[in-house]
């Protein structure tokens, strides 16, 4: 690993250079908020941001993705033949992603890349991506990454970590992929002595600014059915309106629905994000819905993230503590509070904390 120093001007011009040979994804300010998107020609990224409104998961896993195209024209040779949709496989340089969001790809990978099954669409896009993260010097009041297995300077899953050191950037180049990319961008000046300790200093300041935490230590040993039948779900779910906000802003929610859509004599097979908050998500063809009430659906979301995932992979929770759902839930359902209630639940004494997070 080496540390390079990048002047702020060099940073901007380097990103422009990367447009050659890469699709560059970076935070861009739109009218109201920051969006993580592919830079269009002459579009300028903006790194004066806390985090993007939506998570950058869509870079690898778009909200709607055409998988196949087909023809319904009986005269065509390709009548009813699914043809794979051509995708742009240019390497993706993901610049300025926050470490928590970058780590989310590692959590999601456990689902999309298993020894038995590999999701080719997700995996190809992921493998084509280089993650150049921007450390978080000033986390939000809703961040709880440090108790969710990651942190504002976390390097897991990164190719490089860039740190804003005031009038310049310091970057830890962690992989060969990143080394090549840094060369292409012209970011090659070795940092002066003391860069490592400067980064450590900024890291400890940032970590000390994380003001909330969750307890996850007891989740694994809780009995699944005890949590499932815990008395607090009704109370947690009361305010829920069953919208898809939490699942759509979440970097680790991965559920999808596959639909065929036709127009005239051609059609597409398309994969769309789905949400366990929607009644249709679990509706059976028979008409029966095993998660027919909103309480069932709210419980499912939290049980999946904080219990089923924990049990299945034994690698912690399916949450990186980015706090988007906390900020954006329209009715203030706070995963920090729910996680603490699940973690501290004692079915014997039925003590369940019901105060706010």
């Amino acid at each position, binding site marked *: 690993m080496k540390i390079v120093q990048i002047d702020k001007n060099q940073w901007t011009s380097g990103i422009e250079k990367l447009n050659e040979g890469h699709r560059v994804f970076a935070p861009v300010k739109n009218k109201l908020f920051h969006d993580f998107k592919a830079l269009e020609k002459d579009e300028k990224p903006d790194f004066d941001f806390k985090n993007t409104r939506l998570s950058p998961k869509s870079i690898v896993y778009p909200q709607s993705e055409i998988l196949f195209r087909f023809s319904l024209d009986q005269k065509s040779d390709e009548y009813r033949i699914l043809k794979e949709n051509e995708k742009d496989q240019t390497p993706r340089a993901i610049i300025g992603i926050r470490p928590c969001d970058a780590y989310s790809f590692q959590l999601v990978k456990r689902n999309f890349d298993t020894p038995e099954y590999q999701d080719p669409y997700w995996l190809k896009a992921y493998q084509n991506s280089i993650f150049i993260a921007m450390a978080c010097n000033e986390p939000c009041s809703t961040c709880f990454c440090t108790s969710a297995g990651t942190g504002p300077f976390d390097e897991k899953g990164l190719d490089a970590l860039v740190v804003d050191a005031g009038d310049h950037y310091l970057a830890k180049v962690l992989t060969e992929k990143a080394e090549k990319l840094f060369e292409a961008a012209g970011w090659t000046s070795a940092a002066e002595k003391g860069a490592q300790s400067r980064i450590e200093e900024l890291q400890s300041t940032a970590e000390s600014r994380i003001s909330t935490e969750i307890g996850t230590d007891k989740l694994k040993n809780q009995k699944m059915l005890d949590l499932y039948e815990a008395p607090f779900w009704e109370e947690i779910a009361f305010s829920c309106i069953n919208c898809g906000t939490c699942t759509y*802003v979440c970097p680790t929610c991965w559920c999808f629905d596959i639909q065929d859509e036709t127009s005239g004599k051609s059609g597409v097979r398309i994969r769309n994000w789905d949400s366990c908050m929607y009644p249709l998500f679990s509706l059976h063809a028979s008409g029966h819905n095993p998660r027919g009430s909103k309480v069932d659906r709210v419980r499912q979301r939290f049980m999946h993230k904080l219990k089923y995932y924990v049990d299945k992979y034994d690698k912690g929770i399916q949450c990186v503590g980015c706090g988007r759902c906390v900020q954006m839930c*329209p009715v203030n359902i706070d995963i920090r509070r729910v996680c603490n209630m699940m973690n501290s639940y004692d079915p014997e004494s039925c003590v369940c904390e019901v105060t706010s997070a």
Partner: protein
Amino acid sequence: MTAYTDKIKEAAKRLLEEGKVDVVIGFRKGSVPLMNQPHYAQSAGETQQFIWDSNCGINLANYLTNRKEKIGIVAKGCDSRNIVTHIVENKISRDQVHIIGVPCTGMVDRHKITEMVSGDIVEMTEDAETITVNTASGSQNFNKAEVLQQNCAACSHRNPVIYDELIADLLEEQTDVDMFESVREIEAMSAQEKWDYFEDLIAPCIRCYACRNACPLCYCPQCFVDESDPQWVGKSQDPMDIRTFHWLRAYHCAGRCTDCGACERVCPMGIKIREFTKKLNKDCYDLYGWEAGLTTEERPPLDTYRPNDPDEFIK
């Protein structure tokens, strides 16, 4: 308005203790600033979490739908109008609800304040006319009038229109407000400008349906966008499907919308959803002199017929 908190707690406790209701629905303090949470109390102890301030923008009438027990509900002007609409549409009977009326001086626009303040908001406090927002680096004061939700600033029904008891004296209603200013601006546009305006408006939509789900009017057992047999609307980010959702949702609210602003408040992408429904509200007002949810004694214009109804549109 924060002085209402104790009175709400008191009323809720009394109603539960006297057995007049089985549950009271109100708000409790949220875990993040500018955000209170709908809360229910079934025992006197649970009433102690109730709160009232300028962050109670969610429409609580939404939480009445399909409940079977006797309900006490905290209702500001718009909530009460949606309770009326629920009664008129036979979603609930008047006897099933005990309405704790709250004369309301308006809710603050969380999207607007977040935009106006640089930095992460960690706390909001208020007195009668001033909203104080604290960030890590300092605090900023706003005149409440300048940070109100747009629908609250132009509200002419701040008092509950129906109630069983009141938390405070009725307020003088605002009379010099213009509910339809932005509608007139859009009406003056050319067809192409209107198209572009609405395309731009819904461009950030992620189809989370928060607008629909926060709306007390949207109580269909199955929404048309959720039907799969037949499937009316595609599920992708295809712009036509997104438009279809917004247009049909708005039209389904024609003559029923109370402009409570819940749809706009809950939108995670900050879309000004009310631009759709306000035009329909204006048409109902101009054509029939109708504002939704003011009386249980009259049928809404779209489910009744009068020989003198305007009919220029059927030519």
